[in-house]
């Protein structure tokens, strides 16, 4: 429904959970993945906890493809850098000075597990949480409204940026800019696309500031909210438990590494 947000409108148990419960759940999984020993813990949590959760939230394919698209460039660069710049180890091959090492590639794969965990966790959260309910939740939790606004609008900025970039791309193409061909042609096309995108976004920020100011954003009055976010006593208890869990994982993670 909303082309400018990652949110995927579905009817599911996960969608109907209170946003705070979901944030804490995400943080718990991330904390667990980073604190628990074992090289493959991150992957394990992604496959055996996040993926089933995504099934429950009916966004599994969505999550899989987005996580794949976002982490692939990361993975490639991390693996290249780690393997080529690894000091001593077993070479994968050797061509002159170039000799990537197995150990480096391995290390990169292990690090990627953590990155993928964090990414898929937060993607799952934003796919199953309406941005506006998140904003209300944050404000109720005592986050200042300007910070809450920034967090929520930032979550939506990626799709909005993509759409704008495509519009600019089309506009420049229709004026004869070559965007396809070899690396040089593509690189040259980069500036006429990125410049309007960045400048346009800066102007947009100014106008948006004016628009929300006109609508009493800084009025200093006690805010109210149009929609009520359903919460249950059970979830309140669960949140306490999760909070304790996060704390426990952090303590465990620190002690275990001492």
């Amino acid at each position: 429904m909303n082309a400018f947000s990652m949110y995927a409108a579905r009817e599911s148990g996960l969608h109907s959970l209170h946003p705070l419960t979901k944030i804490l759940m995400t943080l718990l999984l991330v904390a667990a993945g980073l604190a628990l020993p074992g090289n493959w813990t991150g992957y394990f949590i992604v496959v055996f906890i996040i993926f089933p959760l995504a099934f429950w939230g009916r966004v599994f394919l969505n999550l899989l493809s987005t996580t794949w698209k976002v982490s692939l460039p990361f993975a490639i660069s991390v693996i290249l850098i780690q393997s080529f710049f690894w000091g001593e180890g077993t070479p994968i091959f050797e061509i002159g000075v170039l000799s990537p090492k197995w150990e480096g590639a391995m290390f990169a794969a292990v690090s990627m597990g953590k990155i993928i965990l964090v990414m898929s966790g937060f993607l799952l959260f934003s796919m199953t949480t309406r941005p506006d309910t998140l904003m209300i939740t944050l404000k109720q939790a005592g986050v200042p409204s300007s910070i809450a606004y920034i967090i929520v609008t930032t979550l939506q900025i990626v799709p909005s940026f993509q759409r704008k970039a495509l519009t600019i791309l089309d506009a420049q193409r229709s004026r004869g800019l070559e965007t396809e061909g070899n690396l040089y042609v593509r690189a040259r096309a980069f500036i006429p696309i990125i410049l309007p995108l960045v400048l346009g976004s800066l102007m947009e920020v100014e106008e948006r500031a004016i628009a929300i100011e006109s609508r009493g954003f800084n009025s200093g009055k006690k805010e109210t909210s149009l929609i009520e976010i359903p919460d249950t006593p059970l979830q309140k208890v669960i949140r306490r438990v999760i909070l304790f869990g996060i704390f426990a994982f952090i303590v465990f993670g620190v002690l275990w590494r001492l």
Partner: protein
Amino acid sequence: MAFVILKDLAYQYPSSTGLVLENISLQIQEGEFVSIIGPNGAGKSTLCYALAGFVPHFFKGEISGEVEVDGRKSSESTLDEWALNVGLAFQNPFNQISGAKYTVFEEIAFGLENIGVPRDEMKKRVEDAMSLTGISDLADRSPYSLSGGQQQRVALTSILVMRPRLLVLDEPTSQMDPVGTREVFGVVRKMAEEGMTVVMVEHKVEWIANFADRVIALKDGQILIEGKPNEVLTSDLLIENGFGISRYTSAAREARKRGLWKKEKLPVTLDEAVEGFKS
């Protein structure tokens, strides 16, 4: 005493070299519907920003003279206080969408949430405002899925719902079709009749002639001419200064040269033209 008073207003943006507004003195009565016309770069938007307090509070820059609304001076007020009395909607509707709301209904309620209106009253006010501007059927749509004209209506409604005493509109119909434009002018006229003071920048002179109480023509940051719509919009001064005039005015001017237009006053609207050519 006038509701809006501008006294010798002059203003320069921090980054610009010349004055953007110069010697602007103006009085607007409560409930008056004033329309501002002028070519690009005449200072129309800057004047809107000055009325809404963004000049100088937001844009900084150098200002002299006074902006006074309802007996209070903009220079002695903060932007946040000012915004409670003066509402501004501008041209680009896309950037007026808060980006934090999922449906049009919630988007319009955003301002009311900010000023702490209780939930039941909020719903009522949003529903009323939406039916006033004729967008009730858009309530459950995403604000981003709308057309430009629809978004402009949402932006206008989002400000109307705040019930400002002074409503400042900077080209609010630029992306609308004729039907939408007429409806917006109708709504604005109605608000003015209910006591809201309206300042509206517009290019569509036929609609201005039909609906506004007064027209102010700006050029190079100064008031070129002001007065009743029919007088201002048919004045030779506008043509000499390169303003766009109504096609009916142009036609009647040509007709007058050939002795086909007998009346002294030139028409701005279709009705006036029809009537004039009949006689």
